């Protein structure tokens, strides 16, 4: 942390680390982050709420980010998204009933040449067709439990 010039510069890395441990930014993490950086809990929450990759509430073990911006839309994202929503039984932004999968349609993931694309726990999957998604779903289901959105 000391490598960041100012105490608050350690805030986002710290929150990313906490989220990696707990799956989301817990209230405890908020207080710890506030204590670490010398800002208030409210300020920490304000910052957390600004960033779409920081979660203020519990999410599934598997986080699916499906790109919905223009190039992916041109590549058939709409059909894919409908399929995913139906498969998981969720609406955009929701977590599946079993609590395993959180589905979020997101903005351009910078992989537009391989549309439609999505990320599963920040791992890219390219040119995803509905059939390909079903296949992926099986492999994810079989995966051992791990933290969502791993950092390093």
């Amino acid at each position, binding site marked *: 942390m000391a490598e960041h010039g100012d105490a608050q510069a350690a805030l986002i890395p710290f929150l*990313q680390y906490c989220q990696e441990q707990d799956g989301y930014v817990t209230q405890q993490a908020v207080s710890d982050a506030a204590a670490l950086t010398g800002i208030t809990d409210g300020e920490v929450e304000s910052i957390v709420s600004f960033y*779409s990759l920081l979660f203020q509430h519990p999410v599934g073990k598997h986080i699916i980010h499906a790109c919905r911006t223009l190039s992916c839309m041109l590549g058939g994202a709409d059909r894919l998204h409908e399929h995913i929503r139906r498969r998981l039984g969720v609406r955009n932004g929701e977590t599946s009933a079993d609590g395993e999968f959180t589905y979020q349609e997101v*903005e351009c993931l*910078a992989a537009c040449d391989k549309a439609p694309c999505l990320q599963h726990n920040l791992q890219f999957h390219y040119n995803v067709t509905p059939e390909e998604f079903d296949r992926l779903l099986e492999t994810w289901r079989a995966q051992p439990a791990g933290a969502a959105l791993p950092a390093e």
Partner: protein
Amino acid sequence: MATFEPVLTKGVGQLDLTDVAAYRKNGGFVALEKALKDMTPESIIAEVTASNLRGRGGAGFPTGKKWGFLPKDGRPRYLVCNCDEAEPGTFKDHMLLEQTPLQLIEGLILSAYAINAAHIVVYIRGEFLEGYRIFMRALSAAREAGYVGDNLLGSGYSADILVHRGAGAYICGEETAMLESIEGKRGEPRLKPPFPANAGLFGMPTVVNNVETLCCIPHILTRGAAWFASIGPPKSPGPKIISVSGQVQKPGNYEIPMGLPAGELLQDYAGGLLPGRTLKAIQPGGGSSAAIFAEDLHTGIDYDSLAAKQTMLGSGGFVVMDDTTCMVRASMTLVRFFEYESCGQCTPCREGGQWVHRILRRLEAGEGSDADLLVLNTINDTLTGTNLCPLGDSIMPFLLSVLRRFPQEFAEHVTLAGCPFDPARRMVAA
């Protein structure tokens, strides 16, 4: 097909350029060794200025000039690398980061040396987890090989690189928002002045440069400013990576000489349109740019030629749309992007973006009215040019360009009470 010897992407796809030895074999680190031995920071800035390199992040600001703005007051300086690539349709930095991270590192060290920066921060988009990992591995390899760290190559110059991962916000690509984000705050653009050159990261003089811009630096120093300036139009020269996507045969990143006509890129590099389709619109410079059309295919892909067409080179995201694409839907998708990514500080951007999005969604769902069209046609005057940062000014250009070009398509969404491109809806309307 026209041949252009790739510069920035040389070896990409053939060699493992994350490996120091392979990168060296590909011509890497020659510039760094040369510069640290023989060049003063001033001469590097002079060379970069002479090359006419313009920033590849979108604004196209001359890089040498930007470096020259730093006040000479002895305060520590920062070099920040903008690797937050999130402009719709743009994926070149993503590729450079993952495929040739050592080239970026070399560019960073050279640039930091040139501006005498004490600290280098690379801001990597949060979604680029794989890219971040690759970069970190390359960084430690470069550090081990003595290209990063203390007393580089015995020159007495020291530089280390700090990596900050983004946390999900397009606006953090805007340079002052990025600085806020690195400082651990909400990524909200700052009021300017002061500009980063005077009061940037932690209030210190700061230069923010795009990944591709920085990747150009080693080549300018090895091959010389004159070589660089000779590629393409003099005021807008150099090799440029264009991210081509959308309805083409071979989407992908293509390195072209600046000034290449749009049609050649489409045809010769990207393999042309899908069979049986005709061209409808191209967004030549990312989601923020206005569209060009079939008659504009002779336009050169460079800053000035595209500006003359009331659009821009921007980030170089080249999105091709053919006759099967609904312009209302395409616009809606982009406006939704800006609405979602607006930080919300400025009223016009925050409220206007949301309003335009709702109108387009209504039109697309067949619930639009003539009043909606009137708003779309007039809102630009109060929505654009009234905000603190350029995000708000990016909401309207594409929409306006296609609205002017295809007014009947928008009107039809009202008269048909549905989208003419959606067969199901057309039947309902009929």
